[in-house]
């Protein structure tokens, strides 16, 4: 019997050894994989165990953190949530993060190794540090002007500083308060489904994530291409354009909203927004050069990030001549985000140079030290400086005596271009009202702001929607706000 007791004891020892080996397997060998499993909430708990860093506008946080004393302890709060939602995005305990909350998450949540005093060590240990802050390029006054200007009407505003690419205002309406998504309760789930079911799509960031047909505002690009290509050499020489203009290879006749477009020079055509002239110019420039100029302005670039990604604005390159004619007046497959059109205006204001837009000035540690700064941004020449100067004149004329007089600001030089874009099946939809512009104070050495406004108000009567009427006043308010709040005053 003794022998068999020993055998049984040996069997028990085997069981013990199996338990120990298996425990080592789970706790040491498999531990990293288990720790990274998406269903493992420990990372989430650690993530919300400390206050999240803040997003700053003009030196003041527009975000905050609330101690809920719950399992996931800190919850995101937003001051003026709807106004800044197209910039901040949301930081939800259930639905993740978007926009700046997403791209800057490493700094905000404290996982970025650069937050460590010894970054290599931080990367190796994968530790968590106090959340850092994100300083944005936004200007509060401009953002407020844009948000109040839209006043809840469907649309978007994007404003940038032409010489640097700093985004000064980025507004989308209707908007939503991201703080309703911060927590993890059932109210959050209800808010989520309500927001997603809303036909007005309040969570859609219209300023950067929606493309619109740019309509007549695209004529800035067409004019630049025509001038750069030498198709037009003098702004005041007649363009020999018939009215109506028959699209090449078709019997479709293109008309104008106003009379007097027949055989006008480019200056007048621009001022009065003659479709016929620009359609014909586009065809004469040719698809290759049109596409090159549009591309230089930023069209067809799928990789633009500010730092979150911007929807690709398109200029179709596989077109016949009729389609090219329509494309050149901002119709057919030509589509642009409001931010893209602000870049177009900025390029004109900045001597033909396109500065890649950006939203984050720098990121800082909780203690105040800089983690990363924006630095110099890539630059691209969209047109010759002389062309840019000519376009400036054309745009100034539009505000002085054309369709954009609503954007006029005393004590400043303002250039603009209106647009009323047809869309929908057979152009049945309520047209979008566009306005793109730039402004330079009389005491400024260079233009301080370029802005694009789009208003898509489905409630309005079709005839009443117009770039000059609906969009230009908003653009003016934004430009005024920027001109008034010089950086010196801000600091």
């Amino acid at each position, binding site marked *: *019997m*003794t*022998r*068999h*007791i*020993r*055998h*049984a*004891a040996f*069997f*028990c*020892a085997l*069981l*013990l050894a*199996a*338990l*120990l080996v*298996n*425990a*080592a397997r*789970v*706790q*040491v060998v*498999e*531990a*990293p*994989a*288990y*720790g990274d*499993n*998406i*269903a*493992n*909430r*420990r990372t989430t*708990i650690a993530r919300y165990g400390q206050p999240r860093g803040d997003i700053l506008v003009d030196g003041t946080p527009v975000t905050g953190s609330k101690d809920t004393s719950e399992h996931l302890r800190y919850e995101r709060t937003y001051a003026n949530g709807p106004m800044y939602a197209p910039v901040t995005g949301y930081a939800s305990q259930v639905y993740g993060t978007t926009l700046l909350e997403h791209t800057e998450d490493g700094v905000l949540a404290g996982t970025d190794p650069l937050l460590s005093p010894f970054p290599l060590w931080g990367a190796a240990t994968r530790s968590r540090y106090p959340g850092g802050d994100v300083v944005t390029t936004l200007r509060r006054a401009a953002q407020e002007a844009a948000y109040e200007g839209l006043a809840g009407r469907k649309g978007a505003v994007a404003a940038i500083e032409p010489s640097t690419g700093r985004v000064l205002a980025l507004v989308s309406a209707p908007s939503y308060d991201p703080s309703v998504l911060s927590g993890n309760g059932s109210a959050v789930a209800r808010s989520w489904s309500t927001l997603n079911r809303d036909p007005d799509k309040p969570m859609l960031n219209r300023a950067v994530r929606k493309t619109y047909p740019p309509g007549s505002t695209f004529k800035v690009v067409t004019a630049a291409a025509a001038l750069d290509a030498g198709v037009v050499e003098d702004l005041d020489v007649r363009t020999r354009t018939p009215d109506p203009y028959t699209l090449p290879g078709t019997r479709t006749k293109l008309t104008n909203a106003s009379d007097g477009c027949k055989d006008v020079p480019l200056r007048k055509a621009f001022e009065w927004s003659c479709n016929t002239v620009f359609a014909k110019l586009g065809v004469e420039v040719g698809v290759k050069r049109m596409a090159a100029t549009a591309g230089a302005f930023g069209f067809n670039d799928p990789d633009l990030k500010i730092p979150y990604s911007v929807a690709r604005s398109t200029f179709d390159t596989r077109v016949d001549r009729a389609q090219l004619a329509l494309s050149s007046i901002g119709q057919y497959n030509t589509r642009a985000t409001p931010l893209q059109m602000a870049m177009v205006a900025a390029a004109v204001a900045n001597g033909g140079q396109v500065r890649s837009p950006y939203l984050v000035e720098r990121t800082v540690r909780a203690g105040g030290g800089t983690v990363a700064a924006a630095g110099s941004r890539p630059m691209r020449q969209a047109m010759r400086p002389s062309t840019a100067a000519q376009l400036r004149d054309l745009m100034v004329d539009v505000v002085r005596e054309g369709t954009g007089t609503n954007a006029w600001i005393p004590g400043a030089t303002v250039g603009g271009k209106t647009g009323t874009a047809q869309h929908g099946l057979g152009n049945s939809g309520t047209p979008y009202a566009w306005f793109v512009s730039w402004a330079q104070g009389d005491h400024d050495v260079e233009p301080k702001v370029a802005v694009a406004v789009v208003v898509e108000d489905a409630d309005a009567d079709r005839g009443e929607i117009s770039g000059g009427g609906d969009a230009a006043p908003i653009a003016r308010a934004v430009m005024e706000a920027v001109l008034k709040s010089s950086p010196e005053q801000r600091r």
Partner: protein
Amino acid sequence: MIKAGTSLVAADTPAPAAPLPRRRGIELSLIVVAVLLSVYGYCAVGLARQGTVPPGAAGYGAGLGVLALVAHLAVRLRAPSADPLLLPIGVLLNGLGLVLIYRLDLETPGDRAAPTQLVWSTLGVALFIVVVLLLRDHRVLQRYAYVCVVAALALLTLPILFPSVNGARIWIRIAGFSIQPGEFAKVLLAVFFAAYLAANRSALAYTGRRVLGVERLQLPTGRVLGPIVAIWLISVGVLVLERDLGTSLLFFGLFVVLLYVATGRTGWIAVGLLLAAVGAVAVGMLEPHVHGRVEDWRHPFASIEAGEGPNQLSQSLFAFAAGGTFGTGLGLGHSILIGFAAKSDFILATAGEELGLAGLSAVFLLYGLLVERGYRTGLALRDPFGRLLAVGLASIVALQVFVIAGGVTGLIPLTGMAMPFLAQGGSSVVTNWAIVALLIRLSDRARSRLGVPRGEESAAPEAGRHEPAGAVR
């Protein structure tokens, strides 16, 4: 306290050269260490969570200390030669269990289990003291073998009359207390198995029909096969009627181990494993409950991949993984994510997460030591009943630890079962204290060099068939 009769044994088997030291002082100092470790854990939880030593620390320490001290005095009085490790291990595991449950209570303020567990622990220690004081000779139990089995069967069938809780019919509720009668049945069955096998082992070892004329391959006769089949049927019955895979596995495993130890015939193991395999396959195919457990074990993260979120097993694995080598520290883990049964079946995950592989290994080794002391007692004893009882009780602990610890760490399919001493559950704690008490009693007999003289042994029922220890094959 060396009694007359020592010489009788000395003539029969090689006696130890000198009386074994009693080592009660060592037991006392180990108990002090065990109590201090528990209080330290209790304080660590409070410091980690609230930043202060919990107000009840002194009271908790004093309570545990007094319980352990009274138990120690009982051992000193009535089992002075008992193994000095058994009681301290029990105290330490019980104390650690209370710390872990107290720690998990902090996550569930509305459902505090530690106070109840403390009451049950007190009851358990009381039962321990009663057993040590009243049971002067373990061989008395042999007389009650059939009473034990009837009582065990009654306890096992009782919960069938009660509504099922969480898919298993293993609880009965009386006056607000949940009792798991199956826990008590374990000890009673161990007593019965030991007595039955001690009486019948010769018959089981030597009778049987040859198969194909091969000497080694003998099938037992129907008369002795009957009880074994009966036990197998009971195990399967428990499994099917109460949906309690763990208990069924434990009973059957216990019986096979004791059968082997008693008869030394590997043929029995083969028969046992065959029956177990048939039972397992049949139940695994017929019972969706059991089938699901096997599927969970094979693919613990299947529910995550299916988008249904982590199941309990994956949460348990996450907890162990989060502990790593040295753990997060008491009070700083998130094993409560396991949800239901975090304080009972899955208590080990909290130990694994907060104490790490180091702490978990220490816990496993404590159980290993407890089992080893039980087996050593079995080896030292000379009466077959005592030997089988000691081996049986130790095996209960070993199998139970393996089944549940292996289950929650993904080694084997998960079956609901209480981690001895650690897990929340009154019946379990009381039963484990009874097991330790019996082991104390057995080891006192083994170490006091009394053994069981042959004369006494023949007085035992059916003792005529007994072979001297070690003579069986």
